[in-house]
């Protein structure tokens, strides 16, 4: 029996939550489970193009540990999830509008496009929804 799709709403820009979203999304996708991630609110700033790792990943004590010990980079994990599995990543259209961002302000070859919350939630009725 096929697994239920996993839907992740990532709205925190904290490094620890961005990392957990990337881990869940990538491992889910490579485990033959369809995964979709909806990036909104402060999380959108973690995906701005050409940001340095220190600017992209801001968090608490665990963030510092992850940087010092070279934990897998969240963007790399998400790209691996897309390459090895069925992972879609959407940029919240409201977050883009409010922040004054366009899709080409975000990291390349990661997002599948902008999307509204209504469509994402409608799709998520078929699966399991996690919010970070």
């Amino acid at each position: 029996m096929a697994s239920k799709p996993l839907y992740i709403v990532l709205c925190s820009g904290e490094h620890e939550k961005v990392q957990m979203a990337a881990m869940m999304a990538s491992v889910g996708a490579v485990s033959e489970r369809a995964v979709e991630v909806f990036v909104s609110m402060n999380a959108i700033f973690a995906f701005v193009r050409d940001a340095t790792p220190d600017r992209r990943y801001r968090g608490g004590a665990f963030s510092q540990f992850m940087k010092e010990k070279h934990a897998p980079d969240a963007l790399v994990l998400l790209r691996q999830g897309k390459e090895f599995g069925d992972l879609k990543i959407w940029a919240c259209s409201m977050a883009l509008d409010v922040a004054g961002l366009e899709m080409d302000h975000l990291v390349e070859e990661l997002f599948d496009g902008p999307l509204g919350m209504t469509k994402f939630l409608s799709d998520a009725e078929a699966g399991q929804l996690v919010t970070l």
Partner: protein
Amino acid sequence: MSERQVIDARGAFCPGPLMELIAALRHSAIGDEVEVWSTDKGSAADIPAWIKKVHHELVSINEADGHWSIVIRKAK
């Protein structure tokens, strides 16, 4: 004839060893084996669970010299 490739993922944090295994399997033929070395404590449970989920074959799993050695045979 089937081959065995060794992936040295010692020092990589979760889910790094799994991702390195998957990358290696993508370039392997059915029947080939991949041996992953990992110091990540979760790998001993995570990788066998992944193998079962996606229907590859677990050949062996051992802990020695401070790391896990997990051998997988590509089944599809």
